[in-house]
């Protein structure tokens, strides 16, 4: 009898493995410069090497303390326990990008374990993903196949050759492994973004996706409930080496559909040795089988005799803990509590490290400059409002991030000061924001030279009022007769006459005095 494979519900189940390249000055086990450090991003291939990185005979690894500290920092930020005693193991396998024939990693005693990260899910609700472990290892080199390129004077066109660049070999790599707590591709993406954000707040990685500073490997399967109420788990698939959030989303969504279809066709269920590895083909939007059975691999892990164990004292841990800056979650809470921002606005201003820092710099600048008695809460709220309205609109138009519009925090502070002092009107302020995107000049000077400052000079104002009352006799009469809403028409005319420079409030006061008070 053919099994009934009718599906009632299908629930996605995703755990993440995230590789973070740490931006320490030198590599994990040698003094060689680290390609993940901003000073060396574009180093010529095979220049960031030394005997250790090249795996030369007799060369020995020596642990980089800074990489341990960065990792502990991430561990603490993820609420992990930090192992008092962890060690280095060798993962043995042959590949041309692995100079020693083994990778130094941490197998059964990781540096950080049992943590969690809270984030705001796609539905706007907070959720938590448990962290199983975070361990340190060294990155491998890079291979380029199918070469047909010019490298300096060397011209390689053989199709049958590969080039090896060992600049990345030995870069400290923090591997973070989560429980399969994620149920939606969108949430997986938000989780990955939040994790990147945390790492960038901690300043342990450049976090530049295009450079491979963070690589994501979702472990995906589907829990299917059949019509008969039976629960079935599909075999787990690990999708390797995704280096964009788009790829994370695409790969997970594709796996969800593919696994359901596969189950309907084959009835294959999760079981020992069933885990397979797939790659992501971004062009076709599909995952592609790479390795059938994970269990077939035997890495012959054993403790690396070249390296003493890592012992983390309470004192060391505490001194690292004190270096942890304000993290996105804390910042979010502070924005809500201190600046009275909505949850949504606070989230928008903290989901990107650069945007968040830009917002902070604008507030700092305003605080430094201002002579008025604006409260901190008011300043925060005002800057947020400007950035989330005028700023967000420009960012949207230019397809850029807020911090990247070309407006300096100083210019933002000047603009807000002008608004606060009422020397510029709201529509002129908006126009000024546009100009600031293009110009480096002082905001006040720019407003002045472009004639955006409000005119409060009473002679000029009086003249505009006189002209307006003359042009709108009916409205003037109505207003004088007690109809408040007639004022709008008169002010509108004044603004037209003045090209928006007239201070609407002063004008209203003046008209009220003229038409009603006497």
């Amino acid at each position, binding site marked *: 009898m053919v099994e009934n494979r009718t599906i009632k519900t299908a629930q996605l189940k995703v755990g993440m493995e995230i590789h973070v390249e740490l931006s320490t000055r030198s590599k994990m086990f040698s003094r060689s410069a680290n390609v993940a450090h901003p000073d060396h991003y574009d180093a010529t291939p095979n220049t960031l090497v030394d005997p250790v990185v090249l795996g030369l*005979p007799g060369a020995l690894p*020596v642990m980089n303390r800074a990489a341990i500290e960065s990792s502990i920092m991430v561990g603490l930020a993820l609420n992990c326990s930090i192992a008092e005693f962890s060690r280095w193991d060798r993962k043995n396998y042959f590949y041309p990008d692995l100079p020693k024939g083994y990778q130094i990693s941490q197998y059964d005693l990781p540096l950080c374990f049992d943590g969690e990260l809270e984030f705001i899910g796609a539905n706007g609700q907070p959720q938590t993903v448990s962290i199983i472990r975070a361990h340190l290892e060294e990155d491998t080199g890079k291979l380029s196949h199918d070469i047909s390129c010019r490298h300096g004077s060397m011209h390689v066109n053989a199709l049958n050759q590969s080039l090896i660049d060992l600049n990345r070999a030995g870069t400290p790599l923090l591997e973070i492994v989560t429980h399969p707590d994620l149920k939606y591709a969108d949430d997986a993406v938000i989780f990955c973004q939040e994790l990147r954000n945390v790492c960038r707040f901690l300043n342990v990685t450049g976090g530049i996706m295009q450079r491979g500073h963070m690589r994501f490997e979702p472990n995906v399967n589907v829990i299917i409930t059949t019509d008969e109420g039976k629960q079935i788990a599909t075999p787990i698939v690990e999708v390797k080496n995704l280096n964009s959030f788009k790829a994370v989303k695409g790969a997970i969504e594709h796996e969800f559909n593919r696994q359901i279809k596969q189950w309907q066709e084959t009835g294959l269920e999760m079981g020992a040795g069933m885990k397979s590895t797939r790659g992501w083909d971004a062009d076709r939007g599909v995952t592609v089988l790479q390795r059938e059975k994970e269990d077939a691999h*035997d890495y012959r892990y054993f403790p690396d005799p070249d390296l003493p164990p890592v012992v983390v004292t309470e004192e060391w841990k505490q001194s690292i803990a004190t270096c942890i800056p304000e993290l996105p979650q804390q910042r979010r809470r502070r924005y809500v509590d201190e600046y009275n921002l909505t949850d949504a606005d606070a989230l928008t201003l903290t989901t990107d490290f650069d945007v968040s820092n830009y917002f902070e710099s604008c507030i700092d600048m305003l605080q430094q400059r201002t002579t008025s008695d604006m409260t901190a809460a008011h300043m925060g709220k005002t800057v947020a409002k400007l950035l989330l309205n005028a700023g967000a609109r420009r960012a949207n138009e230019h397809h850029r991030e807020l911090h990247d519009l070309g407006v300096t925090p100083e210019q933002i502070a000047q603009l807000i000061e002008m608004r606060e002092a009422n020397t510029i009107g709201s529509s002129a302020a908006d126009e000024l924001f546009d100009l600031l995107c293009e110009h480096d000049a002082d905001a006040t000077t720019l407003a002045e030279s472009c004639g955006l400052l409000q005119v409060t000079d009473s002679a000029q104002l009086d003249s505009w009022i006189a002209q307006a009352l003359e042009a709108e006799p009916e409205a003037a009469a109505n207003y004088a007769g007690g109809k408040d809403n007639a004022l709008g028409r008169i002010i509108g005319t004044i603004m037209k006459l003045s090209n928006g420079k007239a201070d609407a409030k002063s004008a209203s006061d003046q008209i009220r005095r003229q038409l009603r008070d006497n």
Partner: protein
Amino acid sequence: MLQRTSISNLQAALQDRSQTAVGIVEDSLDRIDRIDSSIHAFREIYAERALSKAHEIDRLIATGNPIPALAGVPVAIKDNIVTDFGTTTCGSRMLEHFQSPYRATVVDRLEHAGAIIIGKTNCDEFAMGSSTEHCAFGPTHNPWARNRVPGGSSGGSAAAIAAGLCPISLGSDTGGSIRQPAAMCGVVGVKPSYGRVSRNGLVAFGSSFDQIGPFANTVEDAAIVLGVLAGEDPHDSTCASRHVPDYLEKLDQPVADLRIGVPREFLSDHNDVSVKTAVQNAIATYASLGAEIVDIELPLTAYGIATYYVIAPAEASSNLARFDGVRYGLRAELSGDDDLFELYAKSRSQGFGPEVQRRVMLGTYVLSAGYYDAFYARALKTRRLIKQEFDRAFEQCHAIIGPTSPFPAFEIGATQDPISMYQCDIYTTNTSIAGICGMSIPCGFSDIDGQRLPIGLQVQCQAFDEATMLRVAKMFESATTYHAETVSHDGTS
């Protein structure tokens, strides 16, 4: 004969200008030229460079400035210690033309101390062997009996001293590779405690055992060189940061109330009768010097070989993975449809000799899933027990003595069976397993077929107690003349 002159006498001769560094080095090069063709202790000679370095030393002496500890002393280096000049082959086809761009820490320290590196000495391939026969470039012959092995794996370094080709050489000891050839060649050989000397630049075999140490004509010379080599190194995190004592300071003082432990297991009938007799005489000598001889037990001695031949090959299988034909070393010719796997398989099959392949396979096997617990994990447990056994033994005595090797040098080609070859190391592996220090000093001869074959006495002390070990050895040396006996027909006649 300059190459048997002690370092202190050489230094004195340089100081009073009766000798020049160039003269000393020329003498060494001349002896190598005349004698080494029948011994093959050296694999490569750096004549030009050595002479130029000797000139520098002579110029330094001429300035009247104080001269460093090893000024003008010719030193031979085992071929598994990298130098940034010449080649470093490890006795392997795999590295036949390999030139290291960097130098080992010990090479740096030797040159800093004024020593002159004259060449590299032959060894078993990647230091895997006990006879210096398993070499890609031919075996080394024992200077005392050219049809016999010098021991191994540092056979070339031991033979170079025995033949008077240079006064100092370096070897490496993983399970006995300094002590056993020192015994078979009748010279002094020191394996320091694990972590006493930097391994940076020593091509790794068994990383948790490997130590570099000196060969010398006398205990004092070995002590001087050890003082130069020892100490912390930022390039090797297994190298201890602890203080290096002055090994000469109390070298000549007898150890007060000396208690010498003699493990029963070391005087078994496995030993050649000449070895047993020589060691018993040595015990009697110590007793006559006033030492208290303590009967101790090291029952785990029997498990040493098995433990060692699990852990060391396991580490070796991983350490030798880097020789893959990709970046340096031998890369096999490939045919059209060969893939990456063939590149590895062919390069490694052609590059490594049979003994290396055997140990790589052995090590791979014991680390494999399903075998790890039965072999590797169990061997680590035994290792801990062996350490504890030594700790207990050293509560009863200052030093442990016994034979270095159960038999004197055997004939080249005589031992074909790997297991019986591994038995050479029965008294030496446990020192390495426990990480303590051990050395071999001449303690007699075995006269076989008209040949005079040296016998070595092993002295072992607690980890980082080289000072006591050297004193105990020096006491014996001062009371005996075995070290002074040299190869009578050294090829010059």
